[in-house]
């Protein structure tokens, strides 16, 4: 674990009406234990609110959790809002229940990675460390 690099800043959020937060809270704790700076924005976030939090927290990563089936409506909206806010360098990852056929679509529109339900925490940590943070001009 690198002690000299600044901690990655990660915003985690649940968007839409879905209230299943077991996974996102476990991920939040796991990333914190790995030395990252985690802001958990909570439940029922609108796309607008999520993007505001990302901006306010100067986050490098945004992690979204959806188990509601609404991902193809909400995730593109968020990516669009990030772009409009000049936050296109913020990297986005998605977790929850995302059917296989929908994964390529999400990756196409700019999601960096989709993590399925059985993903070990170490895999998420490794992935984030590897990818690092966004570079701001």
């Amino acid at each position, binding site marked *: 674990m690198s002690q000299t690099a600044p901690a990655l800043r990660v915003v985690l959020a649940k968007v839409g*009406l879905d209230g299943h937060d077991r996974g996102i809270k*476990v991920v939040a704790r796991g990333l914190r234990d790995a030395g990252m700076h985690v802001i958990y924005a*909570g439940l029922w976030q609108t796309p607008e609110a999520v993007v505001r939090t990302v901006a306010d927290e100067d986050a490098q990563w945004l992690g979204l959790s959806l188990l*509601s089936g609404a991902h*193809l*409506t909400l995730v593109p909206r968020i990516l669009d809002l990030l772009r409009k806010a000049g936050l296109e360098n913020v990297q986005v990852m998605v977790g929850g229940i995302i059917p296989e056929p929908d994964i390529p679509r999400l990756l196409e529109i700019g999601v960096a990675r989709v993590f399925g339900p*059985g993903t*070990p925490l170490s895999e998420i940590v490794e992935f984030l460390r590897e990818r690092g943070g966004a570079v701001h001009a």
Partner: protein
Amino acid sequence: MATVTDRTAHDRWEREAAVAPSREIPPTTVSSVAVDALYTPESLNGFDPEVDLGYPGQYPFARGIHATMYRSRLWTMRQFAGFGTARQTNERFRFLLDKGQTGLSTAFDLPTLMGLDSDDPRCIGEVGRLGVAVDTLDDMRQLFDGIDLSKISVSMTINAPAIVILAFFLANAEDHGVDWKDLRGTLQNDILKEFHAQNEFVFPPEPSVRLVADVIEFCTNHVPQWNTVSISGYHIREAGSTAVQELAFTLADGFHYVETCLARGMDVDSFAPRLSFFFNAHNDIFEEIAKYRAARVLWAEALRDHYLAKKEASWKLRFHAQTAGCSLQDKQPEVNLIRVAYQALAAALGGCQSLHTNSLDETLALPSEHAVTLALRTQQVLAYETGVTNTVDPVGGSYFVEALTKQMEEGARNYFDRIEDLGGMVPALEAGFFRREIADAAFTYQREVDAKYKLVVGVNAFPEADEKPIETLAIDDHVEKEQVAALRQVKSERDPARVQKALDEVQRTAATSNNLMPALLEAARTRCTVGEIMHAMESVFGRYDGAAKW
């Protein structure tokens, strides 16, 4: 002749056990409770079969709540179902009844669960995806079209707007000439576990519990066969709790509802017999059996000795079980069939009254027809081919099961004390006690799986390199359009003056301590929507977001 109490045999066993190969990780239950290599009569010091075990159908009901259990009547096979429009769900209901299901269980979509209408901007992308969309009484009518509500029992899984949905259900039954006295079913209506785990709450704790009590009170007087609450541990477990936490928090919630009704001046024996429960059926067979037995014993004890209920029916804990959704995996999904079969076995050995078995594809989507048929067949094989239903409580008297049951009871009692120390249910809830306990357990479990202390077939053990994707149910985007159009139609045809009057009455009544049901029934009949009714109540109760901080 050596017997189990002969020290020679015991000493020999200890010697052999000491040198036998042992596992690297000491064996525990799924909830990380240590499990000994052997359980003997010595494991049950102080156990008195007459007091602690008793007879099925008699206090403390450790062996079951009926004298002959499944020999006389099997558990109800009740598969949770719902998606899309009311018409689509009605079709799935009829499909399941046709396949041999014996009771109905309704899944509502997220907008409905959260008390919002299908045309609310907050609901875009969510309509009909996780359950059926219900906006008005017309949807309720369509949902149960062609189903004789006087003959089939119906469960409805809904919490924050439960009282509203029940009003719709009762109004619909009335429209079809079904006497409320003949209606059988269950309303989940357990708001406390929403604050602990599932997060489908809208109003703050106090008014939310008031609504739960309004349902209990109304049904006690007008819908006598209705199970007014399904006090749930399922969701608490799904959120990551241990078995003991599931047991303790569920019963504590039950105690709080009892106390709320007593505080209204209700007689415990008038409503307690219609309180029901809902537990998870997780992987560890014996831990689950012990949990169900401990639940019956603890509830009976509390109702008889603490709340002084006089009727035996008040002491009996009746429960529905559902196999653990959180145990299902998206890798090698057919393996889920096997998990569900073992979990169903635990529920049957534990004496459940009603059972839902998950479908193998549920980590990926809502169940396909094929998958849900297999899930139902799982119950049918269990019921008719395995022989476990031939005798009551087949595992009763097992040293392991009885020891584990006692341990579970003790663990629950410790939690009851801790909740007391925190000032009771509402203060403990508002202090985040339950959420933190559950989050800690969830994290511990994940750590153990990641470290391979707990193995999950297909995930961290025995993976397959090439997985063939399976076909899953897809919810059409047209559902939302159809539902919104239908809602607009209803809104254009109803009498706006009557609607406003009904909503004003809901708001007015919410601000008093009178039972809301009569006002809600009128609102249902005038075609007020779920969202409009909830909004009227919200203007009095407020909206709660306190629990979103963890």
